[in-house]
């Protein structure tokens, strides 16, 4: 109906890719736009501006290396205050089952490596969660920890592609990726008893999952290079030859 604001999606339309995704991804009209805190939204807006112009055309020189990037925020929980110089927060990231159409090409966790709590400033890093006490750390200053220009000063991006990998990925139903966010007071400083006042996990870390749409990957392979260039350059040449 003209003037009807929301898209009345026909049931059979769900076979059309975009409409099917609208049905799956778009929060219902009645649902308010979920509130998204500062850093994650700022990060994704920066990523968007680096990847597309103001009309939404993807830039030729974009560096995401993926046709889809999902920022996943951890389930809200608050750290358990601990005694001594260490503070530990468990981060649970809900993972959706992967749709066949997308291939995971990279996974990173972005976290604050510096936290200012009470009158002290903590240095933090992320480890993957294991049943027993955390022994093997992610190399907190090693491979994969990069500081892409998108990140504000106190944030670091850590590659965890192997960790997320297939084992967590192809199971049906909901999966949770559990990581540990550990902070330590500076050595030698007076051990302060902290309460992580409201420092919920929503503000300390988020997951970035980079996907490629396998169809577009397939399409790129279908046309051997020569023919693709040929059709790109002057499609009417093919027609003329056929004539």
């Amino acid at each position: 109906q003209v003037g009807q604001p929301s898209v009345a999606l026909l049931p059979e339309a769900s076979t059309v890719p975009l409409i099917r995704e609208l049905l799956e991804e778009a929060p219902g009209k009645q649902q308010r736009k979920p509130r998204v805190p500062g850093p994650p939204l700022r990060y994704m807006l920066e990523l968007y501006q680096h990847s597309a112009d103001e009309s939404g055309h993807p830039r030729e020189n974009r560096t995401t290396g993926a046709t889809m990037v999902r920022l996943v925020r951890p389930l809200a929980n608050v750290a358990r205050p601990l005694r001594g110089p260490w503070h530990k927060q468990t981060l649970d990231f809900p993972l959706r089952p992967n749709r066949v159409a997308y291939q995971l090409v990279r996974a990173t966790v972005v976290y604050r490596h510096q936290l200012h709590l009470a009158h002290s400033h903590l240095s933090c890093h992320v480890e993957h969660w294991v049943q027993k006490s955390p022994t093997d750390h992610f190399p907190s200053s090693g491979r994969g920890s990069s500081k892409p220009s998108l990140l504000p000063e106190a944030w670091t991006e850590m590659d965890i592609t192997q960790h997320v990998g297939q084992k967590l990925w192809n199971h049906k139903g909901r999966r949770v990726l559990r990581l540990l966010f550990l902070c330590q007071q500076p050595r030698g400083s007076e051990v302060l008893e902290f309460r992580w006042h409201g420092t919920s996990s929503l503000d300390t870390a988020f997951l970035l999952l980079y996907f490629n749409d396998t169809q577009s990957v397939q399409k790129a392979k279908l046309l051997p290079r020569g023919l693709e260039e040929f059709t790109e350059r002057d499609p009417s040449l093919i027609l003329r030859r056929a004539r």
Partner: protein
Amino acid sequence: QAGIIASEVPGRSRERDGSESNQCSLHPFQVSFQQLGWDHWIIAPHLYTPNYCKGVCPRVLHYGLNSPNHAIIQNLVNELVDQSIPQPSCVPYKYVPISILLIEANGSILYKEYEDMIAQSCTCR
């Protein structure tokens, strides 16, 4: 008959198909995601230019229309054999993608490139 068609004075076919200006061509068109009722989950871009193709398909289809040989035949059939068979339609030929930043129902934020969202050229088919 081929000779007659080839020597066709373009103007005559235009008489039948109307003036040059209403021949099949690309028309710019811009909407906001609010008008589409999607603004509650799309963060960027605000405006979207899908464009559209409109116009008649003249009997002698010029090269710029990237039309297949079948379109020329269909035009001839419509004119010489059976008028109930329609002339070819003016439809998009090439598309380009668009990048969208959106919020999913569970609060995740998604950057995604959607293929075939903007018409870039037209054809008669």
